[in-house]
């Protein structure tokens, strides 16, 4: 980065804008960050828009042709692209609509009228543009965003944890949710959220996406203890995991 403060722009696509809210809620950390960068576009809190930026932070999935074109145009101006949150990073819950025929869903929601001719299957932003940094989670975990931004500023890569949520969950001394008769994706979901859901008595749903090569890296002792398989778990909880299972398909369809 040059000596001048890098300019950071936030843009959102199809999503709930909750991840940007996590950023807005950083409070003191956000003010600290503004010492190092100029935020030139953050529509949730400001109405002026900067035309130039170095770092592009993108929230939301791509779910229409309009989204796709807009992302390409916005990305062309950026030096670094950060995917903010599950929708941008993996497609998030938006992927659930891909499990069913779009035509059929339009019919259910709108009947014979089709006001959304523009709609396409939901996909993560890296199906359209190259992404340099990923902040996973639905929503993102604030402290991880700060870490990622530090890496962006130093021009260093950020390493997303490769171990499963179980590791953090044990450090937090939670009772295993399998012991409570619940079904949890902690053994195959990448850590980094400080086991947010299990800390509050709720099973992990896999919002941060799967660990790399789950067959090799899953929390094996838990799987063995409860007689589970990676595929078995994946088929059971599809709120987010569908994203990664379908991933190969997106790549083929949209990157070529």
């Amino acid at each position: 980065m040059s000596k001048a403060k890098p300019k950071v722009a936030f843009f959102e696509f199809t999503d709930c804008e909750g991840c940007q809210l996590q950023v807005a809620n950083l409070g003191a950390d956000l003010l600290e960050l503004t010492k190092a960068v100029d935020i030139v576009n953050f529509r949730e809190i400001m109405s002026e828009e900067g035309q130039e930026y170095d770092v592009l932070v993108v929230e939301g999935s791509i779910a229409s042709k309009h989204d796709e074109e807009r992302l390409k145009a916005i990305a062309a101006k950026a030096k670094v692209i950060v995917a903010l949150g599950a929708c941008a990073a993996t497609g998030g819950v938006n992927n659930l609509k891909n499990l069913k025929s779009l035509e059929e869903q339009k019919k259910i929601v709108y009947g014979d009228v089709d006001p959304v001719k523009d709609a396409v299957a939901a996909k993560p932003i890296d199906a359209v543009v190259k992404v340099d940094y990923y902040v996973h989670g639905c929503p993102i975990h604030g402290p991880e965003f700060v870490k990622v931004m530090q890496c962006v500023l130093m021009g260093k890569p950020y390493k997303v944890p490769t171990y499963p949520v179980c590791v953090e969950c044990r450090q937090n001394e939670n009772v295993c949710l399998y012991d409570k008769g619940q079904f949890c994706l902690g053994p195959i979901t990448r850590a980094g959220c400080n086991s947010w859901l299990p800390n509050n008595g709720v099973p992990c749903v896999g919002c941060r996406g799967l660990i790399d090569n789950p067959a090799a890296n899953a929390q094996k002792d838990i799987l063995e203890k409860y007689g589970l398989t990676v595929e078995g778990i994946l088929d059971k909880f599809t709120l987010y995991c569908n994203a990664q299972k379908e991933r190969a398909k997106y790549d083929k369809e949209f990157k070529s």
Partner: protein
Amino acid sequence: MTKSSNPDPERTARRASHSGGAKDVKIDVHYLTRVEGHGDITVDVRSGELKECKFKVIESARFFETMLRGRLIYEAQHLTSRICGICACGHSLTSIKASEKALGIVPHEDTLLLRKLLLHTEQMDSHVLHAYVLVAPDLLGVKSIMPLVKTHRPVIERAFRMKKLSDWAGEILAGRHTHPISFAIGGLTKIPEKAHLQKLREMMVEARADYAETVELFKKLALPSFERKGQYVALSHEKEYAFYDGKINVNGEKLVDPQDYLSVIKEEVRDYSSAKFVTVNKAPYMVGALARFNLNGDKLDKKSKEVASYLGLKRPCANTFMNTVAQVVEWGYCLEDSISILERLIKNGIDEEKVLVTMYPKKDQWPIKTRAGRGVGAVEVPRGILFHDYTVDDHGVVAAANCIIPTNQNINNLEADMRKIVPEIVGIQGEEEMRLTLEMLARAYDPCISCSTHLLDVRFVS
């Protein structure tokens, strides 16, 4: 709309010359800023007449209703809280209410108190964001809160403190505010700690000082005067200022059980908008803080009533811009009611046995057997009444779902307001001023466009 009720002769003259064939004025506020969503306003004014008025929302359709079909009802609150990051707790609670109604589950009183408390803190979170971060800059003549950090530092610090209070409340009550974790069908998966409840009570008592300052700030700021007599819809409850519980109150004329919401609330699809158009009595209506105040203001506590009258808010109020003032009044009400709920919970304790549940049925309860049925949940979320409507089969699987979001309900009303206000300001205000007035009008509704599950292009063509 003018700031004074007496028309200024010079302005009238300018308007006359404008309508005498001056150049057309076209305003296109692309990507309406400082609203939580994706709005476009395009107003095309020719010869002083309003020809075209659009409130365009360029949010892609999200299909939550079809995503829900075929999923377990126990996943619904998780999924639907993702409709909106700003009113995530409201969606989660509405979803839980609809699910419980369908399944025939009646939660314990302590659970209800905790839900009301969580909902109050979300109203506070959203209202402070709207009043300080989105509206105050307009009233202080700047584009965003960023310049205010330098010029009005204590104001911004106060806003952050007030925001932080409700963020922290969300954290200790539900694990986090966006998206809440521990509130489940039938109860909570984790009981909030007593020490945290005590701390929250202390913080809330301290926050009274910040609230008093907030009231003074909004006393000083002049809101545009404007009037359009319209329709109002909100939940009403015989005993309290309704947020979590109540019947649908239509213009103070009739009360309808939420389960029968479709008998009064009509949805219509038009081919140019992915947002369904919603009407009551075949006409637009307003939901949100002003609607609640107009219909339920008599249920406010004495202190909140005093604040309302101090800020010039009188029932019934037909000035949409006053929605922000109604939010300020509600902030104080929520603060006081939260303090009394907290005191009750601290004094009596929370009945853990009755409140603690798991999010999903336990392993030995599979395959799942439930009652089949239909349940409608209606809750007052920051921007107005929210409906979730689920039909569930006897395996706890969602067969059909419908959600009606406050912003969807308000868009028709915003359009009606614009139709009234534009001829009033054409020729009186310059392009920039008009642009700001229209933006402010839209922002008064606090439109949460990302919320609107099926919103894409809303076009209003005259």
